[in-house]
């Protein structure tokens, strides 16, 4: 499990959440909060955290994907790169943002910014909030899978500190494409999962209506992700959720981010990259059979033909 140093309030809330036994009902509640239509999106945090912000557009290949916002801003007196999944707030805006589901051109726009961050040794913050990458024939033909994979690899190799924040729902590879950072943190009511509950219900229960059951089975809450070592910290939200007071939500996030970036910035680049690799290398739950009972040497002996 990753280092848990952080502001005292972060640790306190994380401990509270970790010790609470989370049931399926709470998972569903968390998912509703994570998807609340008034919940702050990346541009809401950006406008509060960095008044000077320059957004970049387009992947220089195919087009501009509004489901991903990317740009540079000044944060506590230094340049910083920010990439996030942007959902829309009303019907028209939602369609424009494609419900926060990026295509490959969105991830490639992100990679453009990552390359700038690498050149300038600028820190990168990603703000994750997506039901998943867009499932469409065009996206497939333009290399959706490869774009997600390359985005992870590019992010992993960045020299400067990187922090990924799950601010809403983090679902599937579409979320993880922006999630390979030194520190991965989740807002109190955010969720992080292998797939959206609706998608899981359709696949595992063969009934999209079983989303509540799926949510209960996946237990995608911040508390559980912290327990599994997926999240390094849980950042508290204002009472009732981030949507009740976006200013306060941004202030709480600012407290964690500024401190963490300072901490990470103190490490030399090779050391930071080594720790980042190890962080992801460690994640998983498996067991090892004692050597004598395992088939270690299967030199054709397992031939079933």
């Amino acid at each position, binding site marked *: 499990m990753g280092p848990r140093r952080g502001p005292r309030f972060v640790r306190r809330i994380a401990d509270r959440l970790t010790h609470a036994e989370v049931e399926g009902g709470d998972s569903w509640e968390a998912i509703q909060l994570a998807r609340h239509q008034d919940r702050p999106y990346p541009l809401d945090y950006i406008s509060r955290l960095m008044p000077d912000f320059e957004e970049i557009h387009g992947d220089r290949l195919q087009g501009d994907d509004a489901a991903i916002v990317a740009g540079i801003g000044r944060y506590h007196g230094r340049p910083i790169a920010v990439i996030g999944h942007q959902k829309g707030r009303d019907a028209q805006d939602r369609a424009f943002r494609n419900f926060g589901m990026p295509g490959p051109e969105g991830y490639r726009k992100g990679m453009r910014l990552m390359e700038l961050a690498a050149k300038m040794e600028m820190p990168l913050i990603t703000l994750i909030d997506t039901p998943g*990458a867009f*499932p*469409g*024939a065009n996206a*497939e033909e333009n*290399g*959706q*899978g*490869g774009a*997600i*994979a*390359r985005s*992870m*690899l590019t992010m*992993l*190799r960045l020299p400067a500190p990187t922090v990924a924040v799950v601010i809403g729902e983090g679902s*599937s*590879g579409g979320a*993880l*494409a922006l*999630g*390979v950072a030194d520190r991965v943190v989740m807002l109190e009511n955010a969720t992080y*999962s*292998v*797939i959206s509950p609706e998608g899981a219900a*359709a*696949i*595992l*229960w063969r009934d999209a209506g079983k989303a509540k*059951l*799926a949510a209960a*089975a*996946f*237990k*995608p809450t911040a508390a559980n*992700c912290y327990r*599994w070592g*997926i999240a390094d910290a849980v950042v508290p939200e204002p009472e009732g959720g981030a949507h009740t007071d976006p200013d306060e939500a941004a202030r709480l996030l600012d407290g964690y981010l500024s401190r963490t970036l300072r901490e990470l910035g103190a490490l030399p680049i090779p050391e930071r990259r080594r720790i980042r*690799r190890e962080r*992801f*290398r460690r*994640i*998983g*739950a*498996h*067991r*090892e*059979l*004692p*050597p004598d009972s395992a088939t*270690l*040497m*299967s*030199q*054709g*002996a*397992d*031939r*079933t*033909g």
Partner: protein
Amino acid sequence: MPRPARLPGDDRQCPRCKSHFRAEEIRRNQFVCAACDHHFPIGARERLDNMADGGVWTEIGGELRATDPLRFVDLQPYPDRLRSAEAKGNTEAIVCAELALDGQRCVAAVMDFGFLGGSMGSVVGERFAKAADHAVARGIPLISITSSGGARMQEGVLALMQMAKTIVSLDELHDAGLPFIVVLTHPTTGGVWASFASLGDVTYAEPGALIAFSGPRVIEQTTREKLPEDFGLSERQLVHGHVDAVVDRRQLAARLGRLLAILEQPPREAPQSLATQLAQNGTERAASMARALPQLSRRLRDRVMGEQSQTRRPGDRW
């Protein structure tokens, strides 16, 4: 391991050309239809037996087994699913091994669709990472033959994170200067296609394999698009520029061996001091002059002997 009474590919009809085959016949043909070249699914261990020189391979990470971190229950508890998958003869959805292909040593990470749809959970991620570690330690290339429905739902977000874990391994290979070769087989979808499977330095695909991030059913449900029949298949992925070649399974081992031979680095020489280099250059100059001597004398003799010597047949020796 006990030999299963019947293999999945036993004694069946080719879905494409409707030819019937006896079990032995189709196994000898590496589970490819002899009439129409349709590629049947093949287990990871059989594939290794077929491909490795002399059928010899040494498993890496075979001691790793799955756990149930989420105590996951959908229509069936996860441990029950694992047990019934193991009963079919494999221990996980990936088998990693060191082997030789046409004399080229390499590490292969071969996925098995027969084990829970080839889904990538913690064990697949860890075995892949161990295989990459082994390749780096031995200084040999890594090949991955993929076949997967994506991340293993039953391990939730821990399964998702295995995507990032495989990316870390590719970064290690990158720093070690070792090639990573991918062979996509039917089907390679979801989190596997969106992680290591799409990052091959060279990428082959078996004929007719479905390669996609979102499967056709999901796309049709979400966007109500009508997809062409060959959507996402290898041949179409070749046209769209996502694979380098479509390779028949029966040619695969030889093709990979040739590729590895092309990529093989000459043994690295220790850096030399300037004095040694100069001395060596001098020696080489002297040696090359010595080698040229017989030719010089021959030319001289030609001139002296005139036309007579020019009539000699090629291959005549002096």
